[in-house]
């Protein structure tokens, strides 16, 4: 059984009559695997991340998507998260007035409630979050500030990884998490993703550049073009793309 199974996925931007972006995409990720999706601009990479996470503004017209055998297609975004899906955003939004800590507690409590689990006690939770922040080189003072408010690009991405480690989902989709990162921040982020990796979960990395894959070594690399996966291979495919570009495949 695949952890994430996407079969013949067709999706439009907007309503049913909107422009079709995903045109029959197939993808299977087993527990314990890291897959990378690369592709030229406009190939549908971010649309795939948005459709999987249930972002409003997209319509699935055909195909199926499931996580650990649970059909995701009719679930709301928060229900998909409760089912174990996590999207690390390319552009994390700022939410002034809602402190990071308050947000993380609301999220953790929501997931615990959905699984009938006990909500963590406040003091233990704060300790856990502070430790995670320090391990990602994030000043714990940031936890008191509004969500992503005034954070640099690198700090926002590290905040995404903090959430990944805290919420520990079954499946993490990282949408161009490497964009805008300097090399030191990239290493910190990659280290966080590697800490998250386990035999029980899966990672889908969406990226433009092979550089990230030096630090998070994928099991499978896919090339997405015009809404379909047109080539899959091992990590060497990424090196080949770096050397040759995409035109030899399309």
């Amino acid at each position: 059984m695949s952890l994430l199974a996407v079969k013949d996925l067709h999706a439009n931007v907007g309503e049913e009559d909107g422009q079709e972006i995903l045109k029959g995409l197939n993808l299977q990720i087993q527990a314990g695997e890291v897959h990378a999706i690369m592709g030229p601009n406009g190939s549908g990479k971010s649309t795939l991340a948005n459709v999987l996470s249930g972002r409003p503004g997209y319509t699935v017209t055909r195909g199926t998507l499931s996580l650990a055998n649970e059909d995701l297609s009719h679930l709301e975004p928060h229900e998909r998260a409760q089912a174990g899906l996590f999207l690390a955003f390319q552009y994390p939004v700022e939410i002034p007035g809602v402190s990071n800590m308050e947000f993380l507690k609301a999220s953790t409590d929501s997931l615990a409630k959905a699984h009938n689990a006990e909500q963590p006690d406040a003091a233990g939770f704060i300790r856990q979050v502070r430790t995670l922040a320090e391990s990602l080189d994030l000043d714990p003072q940031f936890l008191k500030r509004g969500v992503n408010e005034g954070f640099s690009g690198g700090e926002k991405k590290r905040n995404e990884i903090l959430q990944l480690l805290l919420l520990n989902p079954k499946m993490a989709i990282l949408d161009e998490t490497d964009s805008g990162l300097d090399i030191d921040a990239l290493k910190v982020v990659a280290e966080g993703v590697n800490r998250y990796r386990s035999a029980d979960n899966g990672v889908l990395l969406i990226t433009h550049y092979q550089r990230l894959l030096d630090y998070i070594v994928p099991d499978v690399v896919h090339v997405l073009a015009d809404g379909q996966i047109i080539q899959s291979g091992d990590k060497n495919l990424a090196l080949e793309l770096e050397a040759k570009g995409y035109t030899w495949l399309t």
Partner: protein
Amino acid sequence: MADLEVLEPLNLPDWLNNTVLAEDAVENYQRALAGPARRELWKYTPARKIIELRQLPATQPVLSGHEQTGVTVTENPSRLDLADLVNIQRAPEAFAQLCKQPLLHIAVTADLAQPLNLHYQGNSWPVIIDVAPDVSMTLTEECEQDHDQQQTLWLRLGANSAVTHARNSFGATALHWQFVSVQVHASGHYRLHNHALASTLRRQDTQIQLVGSGAHAELTSAVMVAERLNLDQQITIEHINPHTTSRQRVHNIVADRGKSTFNGRIHIHEGAKNSDAQLSNKNLGLGANATINTKPELEIYNDDVSCAHGATIGQLDDNQLFYLCSRGVAPAVARRLLCEGFLQQCVDGPLADAAGPALVAPLQDMEMT
């Protein structure tokens, strides 16, 4: 505008006799009642309802912190010089209140370690607070009662003094008029943190005059207007002398069928060179039938100033909502969090701990779908 004329003729009280203010008081008062400025101030709110509140029996507010060294409280002083403090033209109703009732004068002549607190039990005597030069203090006002009521407060900040003023008003079913007039002298520093729930009608008049060079005023305000309730905020900051600065941030949430009015006026007088004023009013409407009136105004009679003002009316941000939901937070909880965050940006000062939960309490009963 018939209801603007319900104010009674003036009977000048003893403390006013033989003062500069008394000379032209009756004439100024009559002129103010008929003037266009007054019509503008009462454009969105039925004046009669508020003016009639003044007929209710008044009591002295409950004081605490007044036993500290440096605080002198006088009931009904026989003589007061308020000539420079009271602007009849701008606030004839408040002036009439001063003339009509017993009043409380509080002089503060030394730094206060503890806040001076006014706790209102209902309709209140007018209060005048004189803060001596170089004195630093905190003033808190609390009003939780649900009776119809009004309060008028005058603050005079001496040169180089600093006052942090926090006000929590959480009665939700009353007619309530709150008037505060503040005068800040040279290098004085005044900071107001206003937190309130709207009510059947909550009218808040705030008039700040920066009369001394280098005077500074800051105002943050967060108000929750729950369903079918009403808020009217009239704020004027006058920059009268050079190098005066002001900052205002006002956030209001207006639920379905609620109504808010914000009129924020910045007046830079001739000669107030290098004044620097900023005003931001943000409104969040919940539901299709919320009514939000907002009018930030600049009136500038000087070239060499820096002024910025802006107002926004919007709904909850879809991207923020999706971000929270993508972390497992149900949409209704996410909406509530975003509303709390919106108000929280303007919750500050010594009464902030009590204000946060009180402001968002109405959200618990609200349908947040």
